[in-house]
């Protein structure tokens, strides 16, 4: 589907947001290598057009729900980079208050309904959100993104069938980045034409070039229109590629450097920048300034995250339950008193997070040496 250029201001914003996501992810990778960030870190470098092109096809009252690779989805919905970075740092100002980390970003106010750590776990939830929209009599649409690997999960078949049966307003977007972790598409899915995987379940398929923000936007816009007007789910396959490993601990032995280099020639950000310059929407100076602004924004996010405190040990039990004054009895078992727990917890969080002068964990250095280029 040929994508036409949006209004100049919108075009600049798309480029700026893709650039922000890129610079954010690069810096997150650096912060991970410096042990500011723990756990897993899945970057979406290379996939920015799938994020911005799709999210910009939504209205503000539509819902977006994503996976464990979701920093960009929070950013594109307007969650400040400060709060996304603070979440990665495990701080109180994180968008999930330091409870979720990289895989579990969330911003209810902006209708970003979360990143989910379990492959395919978000599909049924998306259908539930859409059911609520439907029963409330709204015309809201839910955009549910997931990877090619998730298309093999039971929830994929179950949810597409149910969504088609119940005519739920969901755009299922399979972000086909060619690998389920380190297993190539042809080695994990009998049907590699993923847009067709919903056909037998009553969900028609579409496809877009996920390296092209205009094409992604055009196809997702059409899918959103169909879903909103026809009350029928659609599956869209976005063909893309992640330039970095599955996570930071990925030596990338399953693909060649040549293949990665080949895809990098299709990098969606310079491609869109060149297009906008060719069309006279921006000039070289503005293109450069967009990048400088993104870097400055990420600098500020890192500074903010660094200043934000760790959650207090006494907050450990907060929000396990919505507590009701009327209910008696113990909800949670505390095996130690908070007083006893404090020093231990504080020490544990120090150790786990390290600090800027700390050594890089061995598994990370291995991963870096094995393939991360650090750019």
């Amino acid at each position: 589907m040929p994508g036409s250029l949006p209004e100049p201001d919108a075009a600049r914003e798309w480029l700026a947001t893709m650039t922000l996501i890129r610079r954010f992810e690069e810096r997150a990778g650096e912060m991970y290598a410096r042990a500011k960030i723990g756990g897993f870190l899945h970057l979406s470098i290379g996939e920015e057009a799938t994020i911005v092109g799709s999210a910009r096809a939504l209205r503000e009252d539509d819902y977006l729900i994503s996976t464990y690779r979701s920093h960009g989805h929070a950013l594109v919905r307007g969650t400040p980079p400060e709060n996304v970075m603070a979440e990665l740092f495990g701080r109180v100002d994180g968008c999930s208050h330091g409870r979720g980390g990289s895989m579990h970003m969330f911003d209810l106010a902006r209708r970003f309904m979360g990143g989910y750590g379990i492959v395919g776990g978000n599909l049924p939830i998306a259908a539930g959100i859409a059911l609520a929209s439907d029963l409330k009599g709204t015309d809201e649409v839910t955009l549910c993104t997931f990877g090619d690997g998730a298309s093999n999960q039971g929830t994929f078949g179950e949810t597409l069938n149910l969504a088609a049966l119940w005519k739920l307003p969901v755009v299922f977007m399979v972000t086909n980045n060619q690998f389920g972790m380190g297993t190539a598409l042809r080695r994990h899915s009998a049907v590699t034409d993923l847009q067709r995987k919903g056909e037998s379940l009553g969900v028609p398929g579409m496809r877009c070039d996920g390296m092209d923000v205009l094409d992604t936007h055009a196809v997702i816009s059409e899918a959103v229109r169909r879903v909103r007007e026809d009350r029928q789910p659609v599956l869209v396959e976005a063909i893309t590629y992640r330039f970095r490993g599955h996570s930071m601990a990925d030596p990338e032995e399953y693909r060649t450097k040549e293949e990665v280099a080949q895809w990098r020639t299709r990098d969606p950000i310079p491609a869109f920048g060149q297009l906008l310059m060719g069309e006279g929407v921006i000039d070289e100076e503005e293109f450069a300034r967009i990048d400088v602004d993104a870097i400055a924004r990420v600098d500020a996010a890192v500074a903010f995250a660094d200043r934000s405190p760790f959650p207090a040990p006494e907050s450990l039990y907060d929000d396990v339950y919505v507590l009701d004054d009327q209910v008696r009895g113990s909800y949670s078992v505390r095996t130690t008193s908070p007083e006893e727990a404090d020093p231990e917890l504080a020490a544990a969080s120090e150790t786990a997070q390290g600090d800027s002068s700390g050594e890089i964990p061995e598994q990370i250095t291995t991963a870096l040496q094995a393939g991360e280029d650090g750019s």
Partner: protein
Amino acid sequence: MAQMRYREALNQALREELTRDERVVLMGEDIGVFGGAFKVTEGLLEEFGEARVRDTPISENTIVGVGVGSAMTGLRPVVELMTINFALLAFDQIVNHAAHIHYMFGGQARVPLVVRMPQGAGHQLGPTHSHCLEALFLHVPGLLVAVPTTAADAKGLLKTAIRDENPVIFIEHESLYGVRGEVPEDAEQLVGFGRARTVREGSDVTIVGISRMALTAERAAKTLAEERGVEAEVIDPRTLRPLDLDTILASVAKTNRCVVVEEGWPHGGVGANLAALISEQAFDDLDAPVKRVTGADVPMPYSKPLEDIAYPHEPQIVHAALAILGLEDSGGTAG
């Protein structure tokens, strides 16, 4: 008060809450046209329509997940899983999602979801259809677990579950659906969570019965009183999370002895948990170790004579109570 069956009490709770709150939606396999595998939802489709009483495909994990998502954005879904055995297919949505979303997203989203399902052995359904798994759900922070025994509690607790802001695992019992009891007619007379029911007062030994075992324990207590002159205090916790430990500890302080009876397996079971809590918090009150009467530590066999001895009955409870009172030798009752 009105006399009705446990299943009718549940049906009435659902009907009243569907009427009271338009956000309440029922979903489940065969709950609509068929009326529910155990007829709990009978008549509700006709009364409330297809939008609110929804037959689902056989897709347990997804049904629960749809409940999670719709609860996050404003509905009050009540999902029926045909039996607890099939909840194992939905464990990802129950544990990783329903239970954790409020916490892992920093308190922003709530999941006011009820997942109803019956459990229990005794119908020769073999290993895959006879589970008692309350301990699995009890294990998970973020879930509330209700185990109603009487018709009144079935209704009162279900109404509370639907109005609660947390995900509630509501465990019914297949053998109790037909049991009659007195049920309050007032639609606003709820049974609050975290309030144990003292089924019978006594001063010699405390017997805590979980789910159907509260009834079996009550019968055992009657036998103990009539045949041995032993006065057992029988407690039905009604909810395992939140747990009314105070009532149990107060009883133990009086009787100094405690037997916990459950239909599920012994290792990591409800009784194991209660025994730990009681010994941690009331060790000085105990004159004997807490004793457990549990289901046998085996997959449930089909053959009737084997099935019969694989879950607790009244004589085992009587024996356990007498044993910790030193009135009879302790046999291998637990496990």
